[in-house]
Structure formats: C-alpha cells, structure tokens
C-alpha cells in the first residue's frame, strides 16, 4: 500500500507538498499510461534486474485493478545469473504476464552473430533486440535507462524515436516540452520509452525499500566465488573465466547492477538488508557503472556509439 510521504515540517513545505519519490512515481505512472493510450503494441524490457523490476512495479500500479496492457521482452545473453532467470520466471508466472525471450545464443548457434574475442555478449544484444521488435511489430519499447547513468544518456528523451534500423540520432530527437510526449512515428519506426529518466540510483533503491519490493538475492551481500579482472570481481562461469592466471577466491560481495556475467562486477560488501545497501550506496565514491560495468569503460564515446547502433 502506498502512502504519500509527508515532507519534514522544517522544509516549510505546505499542506500539499509531494515528496520527491512520490513526484517521480507519479511522473513514471503518467508515462506508462500515456504509452497505453497512444501505442498499439508496447513491450517492457524485463531482465530481472532492479531497474526493470521497478518499471514493472510501476506499470502494475498504473493499471490496477486491471492487468498491465503490455507484454515483457528479455534479451537473454545466455550468460545471465541463474538467480536472476529464476526471479524473472517466477515474476512472470505470478502476475500472469506474457514473456518474449530473444536469445543471443540462438543467434550465435545459427551463425547470425559471432562470439567476440573478449567473450562479452552485451554488445551482441542489439541484433536480437531489433529482430524481436521487428517480428512482433512492437511500436513502443520501455527501457529502464536513467539519465544519470552516463553522459550520453543525459541528453536522452523520455520518448526516444528510433528509425527502422533502431538507430538513435541525437540531432533527430524531438524537443520534449512540459509533460507533452510525442509518440507519433512512421511504420517501421518505434519509440523507446524511459519512465525512470529522472530517477537516480539512490532513488531506485529508496523506492525499492519504501515499496518493499523483492529483489533477486544477488543484490544483497552473500558469499560467492569470484576472481579479479580489470579491477573488478567477476563470477566464474562458462562465459570465459577465470583464465589461467586468474585465481578464484570466496568473498562477501553484492551486485549493484545485474547484467551479463562477463561484464558485471560485484562489489565487496557486508550489506544484507536494503537499509544497509542504501547506506553503502549513499556513501559510495564510485558511480554505479564505473564500479561494476566493464563495457562502459570501453571508450569515452562507447555508449554514444552503441546507442546510435540501436542498443539502449
């Protein structure tokens, strides 16, 4: 149950103030409802990661007591954490949702994609994603991207138009004013929609705490076998680690973001409750991706280039 949080009296806020989490929640719900009203075939990208879990939670709230009028899509790299896949399947079953899976492994097996020498599969997600959008004729695709994540994302719109190649041209993006979102598009084009645009990592965690949302256990501190590569703790697996010169050790770790096993690093942590996680994040001196995502370190312009190719 939601309660609208009263703001501290010393804020001098009036009777009708809205705490920032309530403002962000109302804004995200407005975006979900806007898409429901303007598009034929929307889909939510759902990976079982915390941002997509929060998106689904907001979508459920936006249409209650009716069902969410969207299906879900997971682009499965084949290198996901088993805990996260279990969570994904349980969630889909519990809410009676429809899940589409686009599999990177299938694309590799039938030769449409080739494995990269470094073993990372995140950049390979673009092709199966665009294929699924095309095959299912999805016209709006919800992503959990936030503008605070990375410099190229700071310019992203809430409604982001993509051409028939899924491409993102920063100069072709439409100005977005007030709360008026323009979702019109030509056949073959689609719109990526980011309901969490204005949220920060801390907002997401505080909202998870406030709403008591269950997360996959790997977001909390647990003992796990890890090895060190490029300054990150990675989990061993069939994806290609550890190499001969890398040593596996057991450590208490948790994950701040959950993506492909090959490029998602764990941080050392003793935080076993959500409050402890929030305290650690609030005190952290590293941004979310800088600490844990190898793929964004590729180059200063890496994200910008991949967005142009149709990645998120």
């Amino acid at each position, binding site marked *: *149950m*939601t309660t*609208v949080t*009263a*703001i*501290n009296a010393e*804020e001098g*806020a*009036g*009777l*009708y*103030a*809205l*705490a*920032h*989490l*309530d403002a962000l929640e*109302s*804004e995200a719900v*407005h975006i979900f*409802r806007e898409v429901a*009203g303007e598009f034929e075939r929307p889909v939510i990208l759902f990976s079982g990661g915390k941002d997509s879990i929060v998106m689904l939670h907001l979508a459920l*709230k*936006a*249409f209650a*007591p*009716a*069902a969410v009028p969207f299906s879900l899509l997971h682009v499965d790299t084949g290198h996901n954490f088993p805990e996260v896949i279990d969570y994904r399947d349980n969630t889909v079953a519990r809410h009676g949702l429809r899940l589409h899976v686009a599999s990177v492994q299938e694309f590799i097996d039938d030769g449409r994609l080739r494995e990269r020498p470094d073993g990372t599969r995140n950049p390979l997600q673009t092709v199966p994603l665009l294929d699924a959008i095309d095959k299912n004729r999805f016209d709006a695709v919800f992503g959990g991207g936030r*503008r*605070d994540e990375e*410099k*190229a994302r*700071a*310019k992203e719109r809430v409604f982001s138009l993509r051409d028939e190649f899924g491409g993102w041209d*920063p100069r072709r*993006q*439409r*100005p*977005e*004013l*007030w*709360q*008026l979102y*323009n979702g019109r*598009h030509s056949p073959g084009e689609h719109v990526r929609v980011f309901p969490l645009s*204005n949220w*920060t990592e801390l*907002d997401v965690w505080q*909202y998870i*705490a*406030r709403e008591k949302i269950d997360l996959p256990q790997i977001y909390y501190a647990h003992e796990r076998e890890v090895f060190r590569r490029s300054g990150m703790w990675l989990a061993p697996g069939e994806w290609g680690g550890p190499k001969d010169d890398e040593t596996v050790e057991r450590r208490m770790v948790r994950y701040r973001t959950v993506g492909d096993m090959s490029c998602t690093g764990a941080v050392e942590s003793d935080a076993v409750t*959500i*409050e*402890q996680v929030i305290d650690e994040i609030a005190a952290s*001196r*590293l*941004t979310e991706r*800088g600490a844990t995502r190898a793929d964004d370190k590729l180059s*200063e312009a890496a994200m*910008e280039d991949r967005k142009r190719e149709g990645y998120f």
Partner: protein
Amino acid sequence: MTSNLTSEEQAAAAAVERSAATSQLRFATAGSVDDGKSTLVGRLLHDSKSVLADQLEAVEHASRSRGQEAPDLALLTDGLRAEREQGITIDVAYRYFATPKRRFILADTPGHVQYTRNMVTGASTAELAVVLVDARNGVVEQTRRHAAVAALLRVPHVVLAVNKMDLVDYAEPVFAAIAEEFTTYAASLGVPEITAIPISALAGDNVVTPSANMDWYGGPTVLEHLETVPVGTDPSQDPARFPVQFVIRPQTTEHPDYRGYAGQIASGVLRVGDAVTVLPSGRTSTITGIDALGAMVDVAWAPQSVTVTLADDLDISRGDLIAPSDHAPKTTQDVEATVCHLHDRPLRVGDRVLLKHTTRTMKAIIKDIPSRLTLADLSHHPAPGELAANDIGRVVLRTSEPLALDAYEDSRRTGSFLLIDPADGTTLTAGMAGDSFAASADGAEAARDDEGWDF
C-alpha cells in the same frame, strides 16, 4: 520485512524514510559557453559532492591529455562527441544532484543564439532559471533574450548569477549596476521573483561556499538559494484540472463493473464528493473515489497520478477533461497563442498540423501569424508570413474540435500545447495560450522589496 523489528532496524528504516522525503526542485541554466556556464554547473556538481571518484578521474585524465593543468570542470557536463569536437553544447542535458535538504533536476541548456528552442524546452518544466552573465560585459542582448524566455515560459523564480567577479576585482559597484539593470528589465516582463548573486564559478566564490572575497555581499550562495527557494505552487489556489489518460476497465469477476479514469492531476485539488463537469461533452457527475496508486484517499492534488471513479456511468474516454463544475474552463476552436517554433521547416499561414493538448490530439489549421517577436528588445515584427526555427511569435489557430484550454499564465500544464507534422510526426512548435507576458504588475515591485539583496 517482518513486523517485529529491532530498535536498530526501526531506526534504519526511519532514516530511509526521512531521506526519501525530501522535496525536488527542477531548474534550468541559461548562458553561453563564454559566460562560464559549464564551469558553474561543474562547480555545483563538484562542490556539492555529487561528482564521484570515477567521473572526476575521467575528467582529470581528459584535462591532462589536452594539456590542461587543473581539471576542467566543464568536461563533467559535455556529453556528445560532436559537441566535444566543436566545443559547444548542442542540446538540453539533464543532470541530477542532491544535498541533504533537497534533490535537484537541472535542465542544462546551451545559451548560443540559435538555440532559443533549447532554453524554451529546458524552461518549460523548470521552477527556477539561472541566467548567467559575465561581470565584464554586463547585461548583453543574449541576457535580455534569456530573461524574456524565462518570463515567456512563466518560470516562477529567476536567479541572475553575475560570474567572473574575480576578473573585476570583486568590485561591488560592478555587481550592483548589473543587478539593478537586469532586475528592472526582468520585472518589467513580469518575472515574479528575481535574486542576483555575485559569483566566480572558476574560483568557487558564492556557488556552494560563501566568498571570502566579497564580504560586502550578505545574501545566499547559489546552492543555498536553490535549497531554500519555495518549491511548487499551492494547488489549493488553482482550479482542478484532470485530463483523462486512460480508462481502466478490468472486466473481471472480481471487478465486473469497475470503471476508473486514470490520469495525472494537471492542477488544483480533487476531493471525493466534488461536483465535476466532463469536457468537451459538458456532462456532470460527482467524484465517488480517488485511488492514489493503491491508497484510497479523500483528497489528491497536482501533480499526483490517480484513478478517479464517478457516480454516473458516463461516456468518458482518453482526451476528455474532468474539472470542477463551478470552475470549468471554456471550450473553443479558436486559439490565440504565443509559440516558439522548434523545427528547421518553417511554420506558415495555411499549414495543416496536429495539435496536442494534455491527452488530446486534434487537427488544426494555422489561420494567421500576426507578429514575430524579437526577444532582445521585445519589438513586434508584424505579419511575418512564417516562423523559422527559434522564432517566437503570435499564432492564430482553428481546431477541428472544441478544446478545453486555459491561459498559459493560469496553468502551464493545461495552457500549453505542441504542434506536430501530420506527415511524419515531427514536433514542430511549442505553444502557450493567451498573452505572451505577465503585465508589469505592482506585485513585482512588492516581491522585490521582500526578496532584494541586502548588502
């Protein structure tokens, strides 16, 4: 979560709750690269400890590779490769930072002359605008343009940041003269609240920490002002406006007859028991329930997203507006508005467009473009025939259906609209119904006496 928490867990939960209950301020910056805007924004992020180690490391690395000695804080905010190559900012970028008192969403807009549309975009959701001037140059044509955009978009609070005070020996008379000139000008445009602050973004004076070099200035730093400026308006002063976004009809055995109208309250307060009118049909009913995302409440206010149920089974769909019967807006098919044209394709008399207002989209024709406004001196150029990108002008439209439109000065959310190209969906124009500027009221004078700078 179990209910038998230890006291320590309860304290932790309370701390989370408290930290989650801060207010939020959306603000915009305007100023050119030469005024030091990127440095000011970088300084705000850096000195409020919102820049994290890896971001700073990247900036230090990039600064060193360009042969700069000190880290160039402007690099924190320059996003896209094209901009880095050209050394300019080509679009609105949104940045996020927080202090224990408040969290901030900053629309960082380029100040270059051809990017009026970007400032209009950034200012459209802002409750405060920071206009930057170079103390050596004072109020220039561009400053007047920025003030005019803030006034046009009805941004409630404007901050004049007089930057590079270090280059004028931190001299009070220089600041006082610029502040006086700007305040007089902005007040004449009807800007309700103006605060002038002398700063040096490069040296850090009065951005986050008070300046030791300007003890003649007794006012707040930029960040202190951002933390304390009143957020939001009092919704109880505005008539309620509830554009219906989506009709929720579960049609399940559990909810066979449920029909809820989902939307975000655009202005004012809704209460259970309110007598309401649905526009454009004019049918009336009473609010029987308000579902605030899972909590049944008696009262809700802008900008909450809610679902409303009514006593009568009316034919209501997306695009309708629910309003109090005693304060319903008039409907019209003839719209007069001030617009900012956003697209490289010009807007011409006779153009057939789509008009998007709240949750409705309808056809419209441009009947007339009576004048184009020159922002720098507010002169009107009569009958321009067309508006080019970044032009601001008056437009007369005829819509295909009646439209429940408020004046933009009364409601930014129900007084604004977009014009869209029906052929390819391009956003062409941003419109604000009613008069361009608030009249230069006595109220502006009175507000200045309260909010003046004491030095």
